[in-house]
């Protein structure tokens, strides 16, 4: 399955989620290919750190910030992998658009903040455009950097706001703002691997993985 983690708004945790999901899938025994579609190359750097530290399983990772290249490479190599996770940069780009043409699922992370909710409609119009050139793109929005604790009003309101954007299906598996995510992915690890394990973070990631795949 090909999943794109994308949002034209930056700073919503796309790379953190993409790296986490790729490693989570690899830990589940899948052959994973992580594609960094962002010129910043943060995902690629994180995976390099993982490789330098000799962490197993290793993750195949490639950087294609150019849309047409990303498309042709993925089309050529996709049969070799069980899952392909594409981290598209935080703006409208050829890489993001190429990813939208290829993907089975678009995962749009957003934080429970007004600016993030407003940006959903920009992403929605891009989804509409992508759907005009292809069929069967499932697009889901998930809360990322959500407030910790089960009864946050902001989390609930942000989740409810997704209903105003019919292009997205809301996934009720929020990822909360936990240091574990930032620290683990900074070291090229998933929260499941980072010792000591943040059990809540690991459970959130597992729930998201289950909802997606």
């Amino acid at each position, binding site marked *: 399955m090909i999943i794109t983690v994308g949002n034209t708004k930056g700073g919503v945790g796309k790379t953190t989620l993409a790296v986490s999901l790729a490693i989570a899938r690899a830990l589940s025994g899948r052959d994973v290919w992580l594609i960094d579609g962002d010129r910043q190359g943060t995902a690629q750097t994180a995976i390099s750190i993982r490789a330098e530290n000799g962490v197993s399983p290793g993750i195949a990772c490639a950087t294609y910030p150019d*849309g*047409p290249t990303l*498309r042709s490479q993925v089309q050529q190599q996709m049969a070799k992998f069980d899952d392909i996770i594409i981290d598209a940069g935080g*703006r*409208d*780009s*050829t*890489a*993001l*658009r*190429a990813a*939208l*043409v290829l993907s089975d699922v678009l995962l749009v992370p957003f934080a429970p903040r007004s600016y993030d909710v407003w940006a959903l409609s920009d992403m929605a119009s891009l989804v509409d*455009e*992508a759907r*005009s*050139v*292809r069929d069967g793109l499932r697009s889901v929005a998930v809360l990322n950097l959500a407030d910790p604790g089960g009864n946050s009003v902001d989390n609930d309101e942000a989740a409810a706001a997704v209903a105003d954007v019919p292009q997205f299906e809301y996934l009720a598996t929020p990822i909360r703002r936990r240091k574990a995510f930032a620290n683990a992915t900074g070291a090229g690890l998933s929260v499941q691997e980072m010792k000591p394990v943040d059990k809540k973070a690991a459970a959130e990631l597992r729930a998201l993985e289950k909802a997606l795949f």
Partner: protein
Amino acid sequence: MAITKPKAKPSQTAESFISGAPDSEAQPKGVRKGNKRQISLTITPALLQRVDELAAELGQSRAAIINMAIYRAVEHGLIKE
């Protein structure tokens, strides 16, 4: 008889969708104005005066004259043979 919805014709291809992104090199320059692009042009007052006189003579707009002149230059070369 069930009613089937007509399938929307794809208004663009995957290629044109991808190359439509802001970071694409294929993007034409200038500011979009309808089907055209707005560019800025600096010109000497004397030449502008002559452009405007020619425009008045032909009953055309200034932009039309400039466009026609550019078209001739691009199509037939800038230097007379």
